[in-house]
């Protein structure tokens, strides 16, 4: 695009310089010269476009007369006869002078503008769609139109004469531009929107019409080749356009877009050929119905049509974004124009000395302009901390599809690329600038596709190393977030495993013991324990905990009630009962305490024949010590075959990291229980 701007400027300047080469005589306004020096003018000498003469001999004669007239005008002074605007004959002696920019007529600038507009539109389309044949051919029509219009502008707006050799060169350039334009137009409709032929076959019309161009440039034969060639090209374009139109019949949207584009292109070309080129060629008139200079404007219809079609129907796959580029260009032009206006205004102010102007510009205008520019075009790059929530949102999205959508959204919000995302042909390992900054290839985070972003900031700038760093930061943040998420998921799954294991170890083992318990009441007791555990797990999960003081209160009441039924006095000695206070313990420990105390009570009731039971509680450090003594007959823990009851007690206590001991001392049978307390989570870890 910028290359095209530069090209348009260079072409415009070159054309102006060439147009300033001939001399200028100050004829009265509207006067038509009839004689220059000793040469009588014939009407064709003043034709803007000599092509209208129709044959090569006439053309060559025309160039010779132009050279002779130029020579006559090169004298220090020249006598010119002319007809005034009122139709009176007059003559005077003129001193030719150098031509100035202000001497160039409007028609010259009009044709330059046509060329510039064509060049810019070409650059615009080409910059956004490089690899597309249709877009390439469209760009070629713009380039060739500019060549034709800008070269014609020089000779068609000459005052009286132009050096014959230069004239012939410019005419040849114009013919080359015209015929190449025709080639591009034919090829455009062959390839766009759907290729009618393989690209290699484009060579056929190209070579064919190039031969015609060669015949034209070498002035082979008598009649000029130009008009028939262009007529054939136009007919072919209409034919291929029609075929394209017919082929697009199934696709209403495509057709709607094509309608504008084809209509404007073909009408533009047809108007030029029909109103300016053909009438003199066919002998209908000496000159075209519309002066050629203005007829070139018809071609710009093509560009207007394209602009229409792009906005409404995405011709060439260009979206509305494509207009941001014009906005940007317009903005730059506006700044330039403002500078110029300010400059001219300051020049005309009587009070403005150079120093005041400098102060005004330096301290007021330039800083103000800079501020506005920065506001308009330099958005602050997003802060990493602002992006974090979005990265998390992306990385923690529940499904890969959603992750992909959010990642794309994040890239969209961060870089505002003007074009749709593409998938890079080569997946990069790190973020990379591609296509000289027009694109940025970003590898996908784990499991997501890589992306090719085009035209950042809605096409207002190019990608730079800052963007690469930002993209890398996003990728890293995404990586960290998704890894943490994975770790979390692993934790959840580990926790699930732990729950299954706990269920298996506790409930499973207890049910198994119950299954193997011979005695009915023992079976019942074991099942009751298991049921309690299970209910607890279901209502609170493994993580539930209890206030230790409540646990002991419940156990104390229960045991007391049971023993009382059997007339056994019960003493609960908890010197440190209050100390247990608010301490919380996990339910597995609670169940262990409960089942051990219940088992002990059951054993005493059934076997001991005791009259008194004492439960003594102490806490040392993070160990709880419970000593249950009875004055019954006792047993030798080593001698008795330990039943399932004792084994069950021992197992539960051991699984909680505690110890249990049965001992006889001072005529009292005792059970010593030691269980570690501590934080519930530490407990359940220990339980594993």
């Amino acid at each position, binding site marked *: 695009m910028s290359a095209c701007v530069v090209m348009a400027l260079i072409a415009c300047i070159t054309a102006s310089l060439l147009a300033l080469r001939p001399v200028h005589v100050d004829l009265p306004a509207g006067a038509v010269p009839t004689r220059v020096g000793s040469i009588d003018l014939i009407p064709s000498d003043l034709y803007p476009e000599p092509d209208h003469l129709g044959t090569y001999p006439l053309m060559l004669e025309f160039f010779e007369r132009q050279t002779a007239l130029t020579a006559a005008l090169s004298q220090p002074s020249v006598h010119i006869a002319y007809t005034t605007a009122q139709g009176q004959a007059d003559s005077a002696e003129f001193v030719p002078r150098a031509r100035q920019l202000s001497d160039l007529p409007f028609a010259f600038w009009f044709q330059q503008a046509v060329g510039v507009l064509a060049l810019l539109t070409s650059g615009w389309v080409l910059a956004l769609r490089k690899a597309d044949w249709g877009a390439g051919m469209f760009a070629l029509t713009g380039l060739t139109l500019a060549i034709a219009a800008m070269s014609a502008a020089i000779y068609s707006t000459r005052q009286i004469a132009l050096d014959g050799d230069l004239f012939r060169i410019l005419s040849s350039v114009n013919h080359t531009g015209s015929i190449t334009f025709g080639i591009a137009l034919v090829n455009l409709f062959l390839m766009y929107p759907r290729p009618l032929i393989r690209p290699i076959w484009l060579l056929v019309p190209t070579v064919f019409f190039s031969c015609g161009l060669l015949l034209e440039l070498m002035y082979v034969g008598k009649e000029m080749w130009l008009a028939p060639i262009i007529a054939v090209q136009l007919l072919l374009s209409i034919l291929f356009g029609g075929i394209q139109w017919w082929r697009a019949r199934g696709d209403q949207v495509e057709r709607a877009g094509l309608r504008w584009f084809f209509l404007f292109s073909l009408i533009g070309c047809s108007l030029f050929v029909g109103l300016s080129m053909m009438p003199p060629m066919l002998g209908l008139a000496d000159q075209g119905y519309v002066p050629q200079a203005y007829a070139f404007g018809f071609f710009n219809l093509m560009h207007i049509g394209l602009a229409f079609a792009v906005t409404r129907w995405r011709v060439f796959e260009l979206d509305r974004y494509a207009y941001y580029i014009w906005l940007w260009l317009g903005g730059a032009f506006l700044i330039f124009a403002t500078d110029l206006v300010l400059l001219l205004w300051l020049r005309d102010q009587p009070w403005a000395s150079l120093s005041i102007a400098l102060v005004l510009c330096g301290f007021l205008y330039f800083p103000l302009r800079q501020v506005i520019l920065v506001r308009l075009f330099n958005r602050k790059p997003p802060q990493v901390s602002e992006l974090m929530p979005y990265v998390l949102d992306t990385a923690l999205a529940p499904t890969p599809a959603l992750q992909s959508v959010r990642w794309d959204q994040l890239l969209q919000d961060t870089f505002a690329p003007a074009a749709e995302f593409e998938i890079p042909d080569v997946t990069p390992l790190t973020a990379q600038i591609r296509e000289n900054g027009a694109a940025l290839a970003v590898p996908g985070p784990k499991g997501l596709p890589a992306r090719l972003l085009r035209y950042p900031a809605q096409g207002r700038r190019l990608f730079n190393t800052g963007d690469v760093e930002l993209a890398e930061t996003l990728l890293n943040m995404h990586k960290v977030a998704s890894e943490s998420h994975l770790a979390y998921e692993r934790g959840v799954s580990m926790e699930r495993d732990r729950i299954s294991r706990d269920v298996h170890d506790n409930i499973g083992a207890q049910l198994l013991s119950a299954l193997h318990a011979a005695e009915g009441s023992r079976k019942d007791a074991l099942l009751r324990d298991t049921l309690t555990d299970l209910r607890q797990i279901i209502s609170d999960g493994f993580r539930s905990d209890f206030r230790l003081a*409540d646990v002991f209160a*419940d156990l*104390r009441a229960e045991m*007391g*009630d049971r023993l*009382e039924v059997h007339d056994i006095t019960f003493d*609960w000695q908890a010197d440190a009962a209050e100390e247990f206070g608010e301490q919380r313990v996990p339910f597995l420990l609670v169940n262990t305490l409960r089942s051990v105390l219940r088992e002990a009570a059951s054993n005493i009731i059934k076997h001991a024949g005791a009259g008194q039971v004492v439960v003594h509680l102490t806490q040392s450090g993070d160990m709880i010590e419970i000593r249950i003594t009875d004055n019954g007959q006792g047993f030798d823990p080593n001698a008795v075959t330990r039943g399932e009851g004792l084994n069950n007690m021992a197992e539960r206590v051991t699984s909680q990291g505690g110890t249990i001991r049965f001992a006889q001392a001072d005529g009292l049978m005792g059970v010593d229980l030691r269980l570690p307390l501590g934080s519930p989570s530490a407990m359940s870890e220990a339980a594993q």
Partner: protein
Amino acid sequence: MKSDPPDLIASQLRNIQGGTLPLSPAIARRVMDHFRTTGPNVEDAANLTPREAEVLSLVGRGLRVSDVAAALDLAPSTVSSHVKAIYRKLNISSRAEAAYQAARMGLLSDQ
């Protein structure tokens, strides 16, 4: 209560027969919570007396009626009548209403 040992259920039934209303530590704690959260009642009769509160607290800590009686130096029958007064102040006159109130206070979800 379903999973309580059978001899325990037997003892509790016997107590009820003997005129002692059962009051497990868990329920005692719930009742204390109830009175604590509803705060001082406008009607004086609906508030627990200091003695009743003391009984309730001891029962909540696992002491049986006889233990409470010993601890507070009272006759067991006096303690029993305190327990009955506590029930009355919960505004329960029938067993159906007791079940309703218990459900309302979340007592039934316990076991």
